[in-house]
């Protein structure tokens, strides 16, 4: 007898639908391990700020439309401290890094500052403060605000996929961008700081003749992106003042040891990161000059309409 008052399911049951398994292909790296991505860096884009900068890194080649790294920095100051602050003969630098709610691709971020943002803010502040002549600005505050608009995918490390470098890339970009903004603000500094990332990765299996045991040594990659598809063993980010050859910040992740009893992996990582930072510095130099040259050209009245092209570097 069938029950006419209710809607019953089919009497002999159904088979659950089986979807074709989505083939998760890990991207294969296309860049040479020692080549850097092109950098877009432009200053004076935030009108109310004393100085500002915008930095963008393109995503790796196979996914031209996937998310990139986009960071804005704005600098306010030197301006008077709130009256509650104690007297200080130096300027007080505060750096605040914030991820935009839409910055991560699949997960919305909250508005409240979380632990990651607080951690990055402190590191950024440490990286910057050594470059700024704070003694020239007594009783004043210099505020640096960084907003990460887009952070090329992952920030949450997949445990089986090795070390996660997304945050390191963000920090390196933030250092470069903030230093450009500080220079744009006309604040006196002893040098510019640029950020650089390097990583030791597992050598790809299919790379030529790597089957013998001795060739399993990790490979050094400059400027790694989480979208590159490397399996990263360890990574380092530095803040580097190329003019004084001074490291203002060092942050490493992953296991770092001695290779073959010979090379120190930490040295390798640091050298790689410094190499990256030195190359990034060239872009930084051009970017901070650009606005000034534009101003000079305008004052001389021979500014062409196509002036102010972006600064891009391929290395």
């Amino acid at each position: 007898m069938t029950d006419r008052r209710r809607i019953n399911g089919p009497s002999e049951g159904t088979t659950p639908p089986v979807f074709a398994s989505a083939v998760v292909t890990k991207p294969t790296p296309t860049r040479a391990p020692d080549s850097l991505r092109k950098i877009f860096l432009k200053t004076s884009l935030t009108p109310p700020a004393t100085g500002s900068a915008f930095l963008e890194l393109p995503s790796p080649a196979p996914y031209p439309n996937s998310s990139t790294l986009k960071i804005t920095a704005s600098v306010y100051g030197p301006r008077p401290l709130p009256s509650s602050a104690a007297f200080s003969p130096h300027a007080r630098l505060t750096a605040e890094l914030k991820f935009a709610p839409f910055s991560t691709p699949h997960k919305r971020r909250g508005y409240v500052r979380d632990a990651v943002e607080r951690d990055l803010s402190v590191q950024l502040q440490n990286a910057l403060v050594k470059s700024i002549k704070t003694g020239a600005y007594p009783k004043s505050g210099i505020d640096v605000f960084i907003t990460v608009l887009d952070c090329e995918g992952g920030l949450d490390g997949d445990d089986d996929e090795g070390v996660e470098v997304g945050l390191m890339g963000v920090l390196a970009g933030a250092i470069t961008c903030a230093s450009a903004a500080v220079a744009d603000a006309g604040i006196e500094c002893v040098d510019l700081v640029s950020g650089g990332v390097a990583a030791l990765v597992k050598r790809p299996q299919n790379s030529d003749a790597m089957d013998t045991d001795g060739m399993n040594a990790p490979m050094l990659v400059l400027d790694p992106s989480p979208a590159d598809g490397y399996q990263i063993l360890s990574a380092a980010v530095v803040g580097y003042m190329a003019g004084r050859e001074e490291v203002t910040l060092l942050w490493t992740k992953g296991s770092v040891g001695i290779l073959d009893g010979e090379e120190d992996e930490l040295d390798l990582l640091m050298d790689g990161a410094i190499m990256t930072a030195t190359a990034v510095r060239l872009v930084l130099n051009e970017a901070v000059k650009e606005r000034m040259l534009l101003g000079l050209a305008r004052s001389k009245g021979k500014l062409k309409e196509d002036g102010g092209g972006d600064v891009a570097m391929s290395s």
Partner: protein
Amino acid sequence: MATTFPNIAIPGQPLAFATSYTPGTGVHVFNDQICASIVGQPQLSTPASPSRKEKDQEVKQVLSVLRPASGKSEDVALVNLLPQVGSMVLARVTRINPRQATVEIFVVGDTVSNDEFQGIIRQQDVRATEKDKVRIFSSFRPGDIVRAQVISLGDQSNYYLSTASNSLGVVVAHSDSGDPLHPLNWRQMASSRTGAIEERKVAKPI
């Protein structure tokens, strides 16, 4: 000596040996080299008045790095303008009490600053003579614009200002009824409408 400088110097860029020039503004000395501190044009200038001691020696030129005025958009005031000891400022009186007048500094030197700095003029800094007879109420009123000199960076929140000079004091003031006042002498101003006299520490008109 005949060094060629880059068109635009960037922070940290070495410009010359410290022995060749005297460092001016926008530069610092590092490793016996004069390096730029800001983005700008390197410029040489001869010191205005060499001291007697230096006259015997060869006078070194001053190397500075300057930001071109048109480097930024025109509506943004030049940065780096903090009141320093000795700088002339214009300030607005915000409140007074028998011991001091609290002011907001809004012009430092010749430039309108982006932010206002709080300062105070203490009773003993109003004028140079008869300091004990100074009465703040007959020297300043809230709303007056005062030309003053910074004498100290002060405490945590205030710059200390002084008006102890003929050229310093109230430059713009309004009477109780809101009429503009004009100066009569160094201690009196008169309303332009009623002629009523009010007391101020008046700056000598230029």
